[in-house]
């Protein structure tokens, strides 16, 4: 008989109905929790702060200058070109303003593809067990042994032409869904053994009803944490792909900027202003995503760990 002090303090719900009640039950616990979860706050602040700056950039800066030969070459940061220009005459501020959201877009597309595929596979194999479970599990195990980047390299070469950013996002998503599939499947397996799932089935709820009404709500914090992790992984893969020259040469993404830096070995030319901004942008993206995902992990885990 665990002596749990927490469960005995009864929070009395407010009785007036409607929005206020919804707010009371659903939002305040989240708000109250969020305040106690620093890494989530800092992560969000970093990410949205950067996007906000990029947004302003779109308004006040002529982003057309991201095309090659639109500015004099190799200019260090000056009043006219605050971020300087590269060897092919691109304005690096325009590149930063357009590039960051573009890379995030690839990451998001890939993350969402990976999560939806992973969640479906996780539910299919964990809830319905049997042959489906065996098949999906072996696909996942093989997927883990085949790094997504290498497969993308093969795919990219055989497609023969440059992938658009959206196509790259989907391609990365299709090759990295095994990671979320594996983690979400283990959570569904744990949840499936809980008594309230069995009770719901005996109350006449259908299989689908159980998945969406009983299991999904508890999984949401966990799935969002996996989504953020997948986005970060996808961005890493996309930059990697672009850095070895398999990206889309006409797109000013962060990865392509890194590629040009390596290609023209900007370091030996001493053009620090060429590789520092993309580097800073990438670090901010990764650190913020990492903080958000560890914040969400903590939020999803105590609830599940308390049950399991």
């Amino acid at each position: 008989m665990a002596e749990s002090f927490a469960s005995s303090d009864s929070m009395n719900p407010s009785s007036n109905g409607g929005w206020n009640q919804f707010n009371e039950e659903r939002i305040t616990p989240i708000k109250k929790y969020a305040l106690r979860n620093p890494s989530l706050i800092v992560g969000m602040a970093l990410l949205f702060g950067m996007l906000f700056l990029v947004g302003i950039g779109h308004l006040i800066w002529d982003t057309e200058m991201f095309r090659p030969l639109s500015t004099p070459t190799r200019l260090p940061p000056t009043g006219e070109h605050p971020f300087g220009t590269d060897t092919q005459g691109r304005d690096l501020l325009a590149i930063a303003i357009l590039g960051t959201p573009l890379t995030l877009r690839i990451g998001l597309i890939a993350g969402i593809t990976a999560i939806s595929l992973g969640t479906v596979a996780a539910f299919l194999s964990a809830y319905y067990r049997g042959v489906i479970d065996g098949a999906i599990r072996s696909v996942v195990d093989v997927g883990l042994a085949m790094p997504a980047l290498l497969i993308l390299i093969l795919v990219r070469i055989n497609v023969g032409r440059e992938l658009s950013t959206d196509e790259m996002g989907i391609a990365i998503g299709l090759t990295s869904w095994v990671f979320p599939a594996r983690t979400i499947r283990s959570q569904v397996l744990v949840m499936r053994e809980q008594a309230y799932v069995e009770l719901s089935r005996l109350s006449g709820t259908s299989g689908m009803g159980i998945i969406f009404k009983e299991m999904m709500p508890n999984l949401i914090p966990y799935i969002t944490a996996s989504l953020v992790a997948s986005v970060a992984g996808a961005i890493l893969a996309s930059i990697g792909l672009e850095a070895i020259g398999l990206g889309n040469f006409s797109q000013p993404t962060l990865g392509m900027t890194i590629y040009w830096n390596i290609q023209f070995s900007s370091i030996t030319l001493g053009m620090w202003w060429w590789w520092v901004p993309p580097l800073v942008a990438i670090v901010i993206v990764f650190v913020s995503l990492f903080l958000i995902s560890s914040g969400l992990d903590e939020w999803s885990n105590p609830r599940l760990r308390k049950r399991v």
Partner: protein
Amino acid sequence: MTEQSEVAENSSLPKLTSLARSSIQILAGILGNFVVKRFLFFLFVVWIAATVIFIIPRLSGQDPVKEKLLLEAQRGGAMQTGLDEMAKTYQKRFGLDQPLWTQYVNYISDLARLNLGVSIAFFPRTVNDIVFESLMWTLGLMGTVTILAFVLGTLAGAFLGWPRRPGWLQYVFMPLLTLSAIPQYLLAMILIFIIAFKLGWLPLFGGYSPSTLPNLSWDFIVDVLRHAILPAFAIIFSAIGFWAIGMRGMMINTQGEDYMIQADAKGLKGSRIFMRYAVRNALLPQVTGLALVLGTIVTGQVLVERVFSYPGIGDILFQAIRLSDFFVIRGIVIVIILGIAGATFLLDVLYPLLDPRIKVRNT
């Protein structure tokens, strides 16, 4: 084992000699054995991966050889004329004109004999020579450094997760966190800029100074080491953070376990509780974690080699991509997958030594 022998006795076969019966038992024993099962799975993974790699180029209907030649032509290479016959001879040479199924069978049988075919760009040389030569460099540097990063990271994480840790350690945590967020190849660029370019202490790139020829003399080895330091640091600094944070989480979970309370109740010394109870148990998920992220580790290193143009497998891959030398690319991808699946197999086999609960024999 008694069931097996009964089955053998009353089966309808003529009276089995004891040799036949015991061989059935041995076979059942072996096939049921944990290690063999994992090895069969290892072969299964490699076979599936090889098949996927075989299928991908056929999907797009592109012919790898013709596409390579077109690229050559595009770059205004010498062989402007006569592209079609050249393509035909190549196709015959690489057996691409045979029906798909026989190509597949040859491909798999070659693979079984670890023959990865012939390179297109450097025509007479086989893929095996190119790949295995660079593999030495990659294993030499990357292999040792990854293990070093794992051990140092796990130790740092163990101390970070232990309440009675030395005070200054928490301040190490925040920098470790940011370091682990930076991809390896970007860290490499920073290191090159500061140490190699600005301070000039170490060479900018390459595996050894271009002027010297590889020989076993002492100063050549020192030269190689000087070139290896920066890439090694790039990997270690970014990986240590990742492992430390993982281990720290495991340590905190482990301290909530019942046997930790009982260890205190037994009046054990702090150091013993730390090593034999907390770390020893927190290590288990950490090792499984290692097996899961092998893929991302290898990809990270391929890119580090690219940034340093370190003569490892990553750099060769980059050149092969530039020259779209399809068979070398395919060879490298297969070798990398073999390496990862092999490492996973090794970890699977070693894991029961760490965790006695995993049944090794099937009795």
